[in-house]
């Protein structure tokens, strides 16, 4: 039996009507998943993460399951590159 997977809906602010479904292993890092999703939406290099339905930015270094992501969640892409 393999690692469990999780399927989420991702929304990109630049085109909120073009929601897309992604399936990742629950152990996938938030940052790695966000990079994959951002590339699919055509985002240029950056530091993407996700915002959950509570408006909280997910820690890019955590596995999806540890970040509280659940099957069926809707996540919004956001760049979390540092402030200056």
């Amino acid at each position, binding site marked *: 039996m393999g690692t469990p997977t999780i399927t989420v809906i991702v929304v990109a*602010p630049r085109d909120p*009507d073009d929601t897309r479904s992604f399936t990742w292993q629950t152990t996938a890092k938030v940052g790695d998943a966000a990079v994959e999703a951002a590339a699919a939406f055509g985002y240029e290099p950056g530091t993407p993460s996700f*915002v959950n339905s509570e408006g909280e930015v997910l820690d890019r270094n955590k596995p999806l399951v540890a970040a509280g992501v659940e099957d069926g969640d809707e996540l*919004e892409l*956001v760049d*979390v590159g*540092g*402030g200056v």
Partner: protein
Amino acid sequence: MAVSEPVALVPLEVTAAFMEDESAALLRCASRWGWAIEIDVDDLVIKFRMSHPADGTPLVLDADLTSYRAIPPAWRFVDDSGSSTPDSFPAPGEKSIFHSNLVICAPWNRLAYKELGGPHDGDWVGPTNWLNITNVTRAVTLPDMAAIVRAHLHASPGMMA
């Protein structure tokens, strides 16, 4: 090149076309986030109204898009008179773009550049180079910029004053 007169960089109708192109996404994002939005294509201004997540303080976030996209918009938190004051500006959270000098400090905000009164002198080259800055907070569309402000607002502990 110093950008003291950004109005000369891009014809008004060109900037208005960019605004109209991004308006649908802005409206959808504002609806998702529970923010009110006004888009004034004639004056090239966008204005959001929202509440601070930490304490409910009413906030106004506006953007002057003069010469967008040759240079980035001028994003500000303002009070009812249109001024940026400690009472109108969110306090920074960790690694925040909310700067203690009341500037949203990001390459996609032209007010962050020294040419226009901001703190950045040379490290980002200048406001016409904004699309090439990749090592810090990055956004190249208006909804993505607003989404980043929202994320930093969520991490803000309250107001500056």
